[in-house]
C-alpha cells in the first residue's frame, strides 16, 4: 500500500512537468504580449519596455520557465498582471463561491441520477425505461447556454421567482436561498441526463451477471437482489465516476458564473484568458492539475476499498 502510494505520487511529477510545459508553451509562444494590454490606450515604447522588464518578460525563456517551476514548488504565483492582486488571495476568494454552487450540483446530481437510474434499470425494457432514456438523450443534447438563457429569462425575469443575477459577498445563507437555486437548477437540467444514462448502463451490466442468478436461486426477492447485490456492485463504477467529477467542482461552470454574475473561479478563467493574465492562468492550471491527480489517486484507493478484487500493483 505505502509502496503503491509513493509510486503513484512519484508518477505525478512528469505529468505536472508536462502540464507546465504545455501552459508555458501556449502562452509564451502564441499569447499576446500582456504589456501591450497593460500599457493602456496610449502605449509608448518606454512604458511597454518598463512593464516587460517588471513582468520578467525580457528574461530568457528558460529563466522564465525556471521561475515558473519555483512558483509551482512554493505555491506562490505572485501577483495578477492586470489587477496586481496576489494570485493566491484572489483564488482563495473565488474558490468558495464556485464550491457553493458546484457542491450542491454534485450532490443533487448524484442523488437524482443514481435513484432514477436504479429505478429505470430495475424496470429495464419497459416503456418507462425507454421514455426516460429518450428524454435524457434529448435533454443532454441541448446546449447549456440555451437552458441558461431561457431559464434566466422565464424564471428570473418573467416569473420573478429568483433574482436574475447577483451574489452576496460573505453571506452564505442569502446565496444559498436567493442566488444559488436558479443556477443550480439549470446546471442540473443538463448534468443529470448523462449521469443517469451512464449509471443505468452500469446497473444493467451488473444485473446481467451470474451472481444475480445465484441470488435469485437463493430465494432473494427482486428488491433485495437489486439493492443488496446489484447496486452494491454497480457502486464501484458509480463512485469512481463521482470521484472523477471532483476536480470539475473547483473550476465550476464559467458559463453560469458569467451569465449570473457570480464571482467564481470559472469567470476568473475567462477574464484571465482575455487579458492574458499569465500568473492567474498558471496558478489555476497547476492547482487543477494537482487536484485532478490527487482525485484520481483517491478514486483508485476508493476502488480498492469498494472492490476487494482490486490489487495495488
Amino acid at each position: 500500500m505505502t509502496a503503491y502510494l509513493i509510486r503513484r505520487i512519484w508518477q505525478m511529477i512528469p505529468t505536472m512537468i508536462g502540464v507546465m510545459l504545455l501552459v508555458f508553451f501556449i502562452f509564451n509562444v502564441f499569447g499576446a504580449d500582456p504589456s501591450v494590454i497593460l500599457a493602456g490606450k496610449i502605449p509608448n515604447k518606454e512604458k511597454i519596455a518598463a512593464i516587460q522588464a517588471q513582468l520578467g518578460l525580457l528574461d530568457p525563456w528558460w529563466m522564465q520557465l525556471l521561475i515558473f517551476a519555483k512558483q509551482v514548488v512554493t505555491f506562490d504565483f505572485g501577483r495578477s498582471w492586470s489587477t496586481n492582486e496576489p494570485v493566491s488571495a484572489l483564488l482563495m476568494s473565488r474558490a468558495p463561491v464556485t464550491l457553493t454552487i458546484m457542491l450542491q450540483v454534485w450532490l443533487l446530481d448524484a442523488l437524482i441520477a443514481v435513484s432514477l437510474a436504479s429505478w429505470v434499470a430495475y424496470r429495464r425494457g419497459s416503456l418507462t425505461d425507454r421514455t426516460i432514456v429518450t428524454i435524457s438523450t434529448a435533454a443532454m443534447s441541448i446546449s447549456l447556454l440555451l437552458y441558461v438563457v431561457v431559464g434566466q429569462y422565464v424564471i428570473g425575469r418573467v416569473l420573478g421567482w429568483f433574482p436574475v443575477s447577483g451574489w452576496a459577498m460573505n453571506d452564505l445563507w442569502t446565496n444559498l436561498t436567493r442566488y444559488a437555486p436558479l443556477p443550480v437548477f439549470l446546471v442540473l437540467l443538463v448534468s443529470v441526463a448523462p449521469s443517469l444514462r451512464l449509471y443505468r448502463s452500469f446497473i444493467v451490466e451488473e444485473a446481467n451477471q451470474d451472481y444475480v442468478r445465484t441470488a435469485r436461486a437463493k430465494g432473494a426477492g427482486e428488491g433485495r437482489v437489486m439493492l443488496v447485490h446489484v447496486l452494491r456492485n454497480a457502486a464501484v463504477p458509480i463512485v469512481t465516476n463521482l470521484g472523477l467529477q471532483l476536480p470539475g467542482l473547483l473550476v465550476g461552470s464559467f458559463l453560469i458564473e458569467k451569465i449570473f454574475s457570480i464571482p467564481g473561479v470559472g469567470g476568473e478563467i475567462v477574464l484571465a484568458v482575455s487579458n492574458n493574465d499569465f500568473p492567474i492562468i498558471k496558478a489555476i492550471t497547476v492547482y487543477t492539475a494537482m487536484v485532478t491527480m490527487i482525485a484520481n489517486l483517491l478514486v483508485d484507493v476508493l476502488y480498492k476499498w469498494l472492490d476487494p478484487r482490486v490489487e495495488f500493483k
Partner: protein
Amino acid sequence: MTQKNLLEIKDLRVTFRMGQGQRFEALKGVNYVVPEHATVALVGESGSGKSVSAMAIMGLLPKSNTEFAAESQILFNGIDLLKETDDQRRARCGQQISMIFQDPMTSLNPVYRVGEQIVEVLMLHKKISKKAARERAIELLTEVGIPDPSKRIDSYPHEMSGGQQQRVMIAMAIACEPKLLIADEPTTALDVTVQKQIIELLKKLQRSHGMSILFITHDLELVREIADHVVVMQHGVIREQGASEALFEAPQDPYTRALLACRPHIDTRPLRLPVVDDFLQGREKDLPQGERSRGVGPADPIVLEVKGLSKTYTVKQGLFGHREVHAVKDVSFKLARGKTVGIVGESGSGKTTLGKTILRLHSCQGGEVLFEGKDLMKLSDKDYKPYKKRLNIIFQNPYASLNPRFTVGDILMEPMRVHGIFDSDKDRADHARELLKRVSMPDGAFFKYPHEFSGGQRQRISIARCLTMKPEIIVCDESVSALDVSVQAQVLNLLQELQEEYGMSYLFISHDLSVVKYISDEVLVMNQGQMVEYANSDQLYRDPQHPYTQKLLAAIPGRG
C-alpha cells in the same frame, strides 16, 4: 424398494420469443421424474435444452420472453411449480430446492465475503440470529471440506481456488437442507483432479443429507460416476432414459450409443473415431475395426527440437522490486516428422504459453528451439517471417480466432497474400475453395462471414487457413476443447487424416487426457510450468512414473 417421486416433469414445452416474431422451441414435450434420495443426470450437447428444465424449476427463465405450454407441469411433491406465485417460489428456492452453477467464480458475488453469502441464505429462510447463522456457516464450510473454515469464512471469493469456490456454492446450496439439489455443469470449469473431488463430495452429501440431485452435464462418462438414472437429451427432446447401469450396459438409442462411442477412451484407440451420423444413419456395423498403434522410434526424423525453453514474467513488487514468475521452466522435447506430441496439464500449467512461445507469439527467456538446425528464438523478426508459414497454430476458441469482419474467402486468402503464395488472387481463391472442400465445408462458405457458422465449422475454417501455407508443424492449442463431443470426433478425425495426407507434425495441447491419448505419439505432462513426465504415449498411460501423472490419470471420469 419403491421410491416416491420428489419431482415430476410432465410434458414440459418451453418456447423463447427471440424478437422480430422469431420463436425458438427449447423443450418439445419433456417428461422425466426425480425420485427421492436419488441422483438423476440430464445429459446432452449444447442446444439440447438440458439446462432449460432446471431453470424452469427454479423460476430463473426470463419472464418477458419465455412461454410455457398450458399442459406443461412441474410437480414438486405434488405441487405444480408453474402455477405458483413469485413469493411462493422464492420461499421454496434456496430452502427446498437449491442450485449450483457452472462457473463458481462468476456465480459468487465478488464484493461480499463467502461467509456473508452463506449467512444470507440462512437468514432468508430460517429464523435464526446472525451469530447462529455464522456458526452454521462454519459448520457447512467444514462439511464441504474447506480447510480452516473459521478463517476462510471471511475470505472473498477471488481469494479462493475454483474448487474451493464451488465448495462454497455447495455449502450455500445445502445450507437449508434442501430436498432437491440441481447441479448445472458444476465441474465443467474445473480441472480434472478437482472435478473428481467435487463429484466425491456431492455423492457423500447426497447420502448423508438424503437429498435428490438433478445433475446436468455434457459428459456421459461423468454420469456413470454419479447417477442412478440417466436422461439423454437432444434438440429439446428426450432420446432415451433409464437406470444408469442398464443404460450404460445396453444403450437402446443410437444417439446414446453415438455419444458413448464418439468420445475417445483412455483404453482404446480406434483407427477412426465414430461420429454421430454413423449411428443415426445406421452405419454402425461398417465402422472400421482395429486399433491404431502410436509411438516414436529412434528412426523417425526429428523436425523440431526444444531445449530448455523458459518463459518468465516480471511482476512489480514493493517500491522498486521485481519478482520473476516462471510460466514455463526448462522444457525440452523432440517432435518427429508426421508425429504428434501431446502436451497435457491443468489450467495454469503453462502448456499454452509453451506452445505460443515456440511460435514466438510470446518472447522467451532462455532455451533453444531448433528447426532445420537453426535456433528460431535467435532469429530477428524479419528473418523469422518465412518460418511463420512453416510453423502455425490452431487456437482454442473458434469464435474468437477468425476475424469477424472478414469473409471466409478473405480469411483463407490472407496468408497466401502475405507470403506471396501463387501469383494472382484468382489462383489463391481457387486453392482456398479446394481446401474448403477438403475440410468438408460447402463451397458457398467462401463468401460468408464466420458468425454464420457453428463452432465445429469455424474450427474447420481455421484448419483450412493453416493448410493454405502448407505448414510442417501445427500447434493445436486446445483446438477441440470448446466443441461438443460429436463435433470433436469429426475434427479429430480430420486432423488425423490431414496428418497422414501432408505428413505434418502436431504439437497437441489439451487438458483432456483421453483426447491426448487418442491423437498423440508422445506425451509431455506439465505442472506449474515444469515438465514432469515425457514418454511415448502408450507407455505413459500404461505405466505413469511421476505421482502427478498418476493423480491425473486416476481422476479421469469413468475409470473408477
